[in-house]
């Protein structure tokens, strides 16, 4: 008996090997990691000249950052006493001594790759209907990427990181009303005493102190390793899911789309209804494959309304 016929194998992969059309559809539909993909794609969506693969790269860099970041967390202690020494030891003593390098360069690369992804999306007009909202989610992911990089910048606890974060976080004291040097902050006063001072303003909330110090290191560590990654992971899920729901990778409208215009309204509950249909038909064997092909342009046509 071969492995593929064993009960264990069958319990994990609920269909035969993806060597025929039916099972190539099934492998996408029945795997939680693969099902963020549609079953079929237009060829132009695969051309490197069109997408530059920057979205994929950004996602992959997030994975690399997560893996190397977790490994670094086993070693690094976010305290004034140990942070710098741990980074030194990571370079000079620890096995796999390039972990920090991979983490840092991947972080720089991620910022650049996210910009290039947005650049491509703009140049191809891919933020236009029906993808307006996903562009906004993308902008939030840009902010998350920058904040992840900024909070991580502090952790080596050397002169470079400490003063870069000092310069950056000084801006928080300039927030209108809530920063101790921001416009109008004296308007918030109780009984002649300023409510907003250097020990109680937006910058203090960010740093946990009047200047970058022990408390800041702890705050930025938690923001960097837990809080922002969680937010980013949720946003990434929404982003990828919406790429699919908004009609997959953008492309030029097809001729004769006008003719299908009525199809839009008919597909009132469009995407969802179709998805159920897809799964139902997927099980239906060969017919499912054809059905999917016929509906290739479906999500786009129905996605708008």
């Amino acid at each position, binding site marked *: 008996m071969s492995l593929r016929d064993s009960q264990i194998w069958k319990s994990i992969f609920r269909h035969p090997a993806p060597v025929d059309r039916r099972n190539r559809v099934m492998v996408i539909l029945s795997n939680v990691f693969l099902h963020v993909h549609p079953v079929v794609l237009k060829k132009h969506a695969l051309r490197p000249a069109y997408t530059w693969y920057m979205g994929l790269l950004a996602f992959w860099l997030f994975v690399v950052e997560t893996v190397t970041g977790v490994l670094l967390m086993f070693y690094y202690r976010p305290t004034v006493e140990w942070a710098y020494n741990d980074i030194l030891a990571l370079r000079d003593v620890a096995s796999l001594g390039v972990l920090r390098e*991979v983490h840092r360069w991947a972080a720089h690369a991620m910022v650049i790759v996210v910009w*290039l992804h947005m650049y491509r999306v703009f140049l*191809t007009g891919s933020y236009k209907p029906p993808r307006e909202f996903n562009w906004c989610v993308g902008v939030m992911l840009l902010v998350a990427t920058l904040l992840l990089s900024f909070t991580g910048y502090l952790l080596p606890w050397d*002169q470079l*990181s400490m003063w870069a974060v000092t310069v950056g976080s000084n801006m928080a004291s300039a927030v209108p009303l809530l920063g101790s040097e921001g416009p109008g902050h004296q308007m918030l006063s109780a009984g002649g005493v300023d409510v907003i001072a250097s020990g109680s303003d937006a910058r203090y909330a960010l740093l946990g102190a009047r200047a970058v110090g022990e408390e800041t290191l702890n705050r930025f560590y938690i923001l960097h390793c837990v809080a922002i990654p969680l937010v980013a992971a949720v946003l990434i899920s929404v982003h990828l899911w919406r790429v699919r729901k908004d009609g997959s990778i953008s492309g030029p409208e097809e001729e004769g789309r006008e003719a299908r215009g009525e199809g839009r309204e008919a597909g009132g509950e469009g995407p969802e209804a179709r998805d159920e249909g897809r799964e139902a038909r997927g099980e239906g064997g060969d017919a499912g494959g054809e059905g999917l092909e016929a509906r290739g342009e479906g999500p786009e046509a129905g996605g708008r309304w």
Partner: protein
Amino acid sequence: MHPESHALLATTAWWLGWFYAAVAALNAGAAVWAARRHAWLRAAAWSAWGAGLAAAAWFSLAGHPPQLPEPFKQACDDLLGPVTFTAGALGLLAVGYVLRRWLVVPAVAWLLLNVSLVWLGLSLSDAHFAAIVARPDNVPIVAMVYLLGFFTWAGTYQAVENDRRLARGQGPVEADYRDEVLVWPDVIYLELIGAILATVVLIVWSLLLRAPLEQPANPAVTPNPAKAPWYFLGLQELLVYFPPWLAGVILPALMILGLMAIPYLDFNPRGNGYYTIAQRRFAYLTFQFGFLGLWVLLILIGTFLRGPNWSFFGFYEAHDAQKMADMTNVSLAELFWVTALGRELPQVTASHGMLVELGQIAWREAPGLAALGLYYVALPWLLARTLLQGLAAKLGRTRYGVLTLLLLTMLALPLKMILVWTVHLSYVVNIPEYFFYF
């Protein structure tokens, strides 16, 4: 030569050798590519150029990299300042846009790439240039400049091609690839290969270049200059022209909100899902002005050209901590009351209560407040009734208001820069009583 720069040259020479060798190999590849298409003249040109680079590689590996002549470096540094650099770069972008059909021709683009790479190589043999550009954290930014250049070319090339086709009544290139492929295996394997390649690049990069680590953090020793992480250096550069609450809080917030607003303000249905410039000229130019012309340009200035005391330094200039920028700027109120009218600045007294104080401040700052009102209220109002009548009607009041606010703010950046450079204006509205500067 300075002994210090001699030591630096010895370490960079080895790198430079391999850099020239790589560029030579690229040109050899280009020569082969041209020869296979029977473009013999081009093949000969790239071969000769590649041979020259190979010689440069040889000399560099032997410890004698080719150098730029000192008078050239001196002239560059003398010419370069915040004004000439910003204006020059924006001018180059504009020229690039106008000549895009010609610049995207592969041979032209290849020549420009070669020129920039050779300039980079020659400049890296300068100790001052290398000290800034070859800093570990700045290496990714150099890579970003080339990636941006490459992808701007790639996007423009396709847009030019599509615009030609669209003008002839054909569909864009993207429409030629309508065939469908199953995601398994084609897409999954592409993703796998892409992920592996990216990881390999990262590991090689990490083995070749150590992550920076300076002295332990010390609150008592302030570095000069203290710089934010590189992606925020555009904002730090804005601090030269704007008060912190604008440069560090309001403008970044408007950038984020403005980016999110793009799909709701751009009602042009054309150019969705393919590269084009002709079908969405306004959106394209606005984005390129904001992205390449402001965001990226300001980052480059902040990273490579600002030194101690945030003074401006040329590419080949020593970063001398004694160099102080002459920054005696005056507010618009002073320019109006004192310089123009020859009177004293109206007095503000806090003893008569807040309302009186605010009234006095308003009178003192009347010229600035009037200028802001004209710029942000009267100008859009006037435009909605004249030049932009159609646009205003199409967008409706709210969206038109948001669009003009964003566009005018974006335009305010270069306007304020020009005012600082020419009349040394500090703030349009200057109310130190309430920490309000504009």
